[in-house]
């Protein structure tokens, strides 16, 4: 199988995945991705035309509960993990000029 990922698709994938393209590593990343995709390419030899996809191994519907508050978490227990948090706000770089 030809390499499925080239430098152009790697740029697109990095943008979609919000991962940086690391200088000097793109060849190694390309080789690593194409190696995995060559392995998974073995799937292509199987005829699956009339097979339904399986998303849940037990084919159960997800159990739902009433859409109401049943428990709360102390906000400070959550915000203590935020790298930049002040006065109830999570800080990000300026978005609107």
């Amino acid at each position, binding site marked *: 199988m030809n390499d*499925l*990922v080239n430098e152009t*698709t*790697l740029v*697109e*994938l*990095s943008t*979609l*995945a*919000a*991962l*940086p393209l*690391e200088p000097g590593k793109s060849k190694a*990343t390309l080789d*690593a*991705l194409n*190696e*995995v*995709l060559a*392995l*998974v*390419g*073995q*799937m*292509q030899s*199987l005829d*699956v035309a009339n*097979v*339904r*996809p*399986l*998303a*849940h*191994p*037990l084919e*159960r519907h*997800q*159990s*739902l*509960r009433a859409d109401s508050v049943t428990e709360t*978490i*102390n906000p400070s*227990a*959550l915000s*203590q*993990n*935020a*790298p*930049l948090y002040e006065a109830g706000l*999570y800080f*990000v*770089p*300026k*978005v609107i000029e």
Partner: protein
Amino acid sequence: MNLNFATLTDLQKALRNRDVSATELTQHYLTRIDALDPALNSFISIQAETALDAAGRADARLAQGDARPLTGIPIAQKDIFCLQGHRTTAGSKMLSDFIAPYTATCSEKLADAGAITLGKTNMDEFAMGSSNENSYFGAVHNPWDPQLIPGGSSGGSAAAVAAGLCAASTGTDTGGSIRQPAAMCGLTGLKPTYGRISRWGMIAFASSLDQAGPMTRTARDAAILLEHMAGHDPRDSTSLTEPVPRFSESLGSNIKGLRIGVCREFFTEGLDPAVERSIREALAVYESLGATLVDISLPHTPYSVSAYYVIAPAECSANLARFDGIRYGHRCSDPENLQDLYQRSRGEGFGEEVKKRILVGTFALSAGYFDAFYHRAQKIRRLIKEDFVQAFEHVDVIAGPTAPTPAFPLGEKASNPVEMYLQDIFTISASLAGVPAMSIPAGLANGLPVGLQLIGNYLQEGPLLQAAHQFQQATHWHTLTPPEVL
């Protein structure tokens, strides 16, 4: 009694008879961790103070005759389970300072049953790996030979139990991450039916595959822990509602007439001859116990690794999208803008294997490739499930090797990802199908533990544990301990 390698049953008796106190037992393991873990690196964090506090409360309960099933039993928990107020890292720089705001359901259930958590064990980053070499906190060493890997991703949990640093541990299994390290460290490890144990509070890798389970010295111990980890949880929408049997109370009957399927696809070219010899001998033991061996085929097994390495990365790319450097996790310094914040925080916070799998998953889900990869993998998943459904019309349990080789040297496969991925070739199909499966010690190959994998039908952990327990009544492999560990 040798406390180092005592079973849960032995420790329960010793605690109730006041032969040892929970405080003495907890201190015993903490002392061993101090002495032995620097060479193994099986723990990421130790909770000595909270463990000793819990042990004090356990002793008070024992004195009052108010002990719960696991009161005073010190265990270790894979560092993928959130424990409120404690650091929970998933083996990643991304979460190296993360303090869990709540406790995972299965960890809470173990605590409710009286178990004491000694600390959090090392693991491949976000459970992605088969050798425990992908941890931000360094590789784990196998107690049987510190030059060797312990298996992964629950390698720390396996090494800690094998070295006698705790009585038992918890692990998680997405494609073999309980069974393969259990095999390589000479333990019993069980991945239950998908949905048996709540995933709430367990950091997600691939949500349709992730399952927690026990890692123990014996099948009886695995049954005891499973009883207290399993059960419906309304906080996990995939949690099963079926009642949890008292697995430990139905291990005793013999297995005469048990039909064991021997899957021919599990005896392939890459299988180490010494491992195959041990597995064949284990099957002969089963025959001597009255079981019938039945030749079976799971014809789509050769496609399981391919399908898995599409489905798991696809789910991981979605699950790990939550790490943005804003609400929690690593944040880069001086970001130029929002996109730069996302990209550099994720680039710096994730390790190489995690980034690779995110990119593979992003590719499999991207426009133009979705049908050819993700959709096709889900169709193959159905074929693999149907293989098991058909097989279980004729057999009760399926047996074969857990891993193709015994533990291998650290670094040996680190530069060959495909070879590393093939370590899980025998465990992945049960994960894709969602059926319960376990590994039990079944011999030695070149002086290293070999794991026998037993796979059961949906929700049939009971017969699986019974088959494992009866094997352990007839063999001594589960009693062996690493030669270097005192």
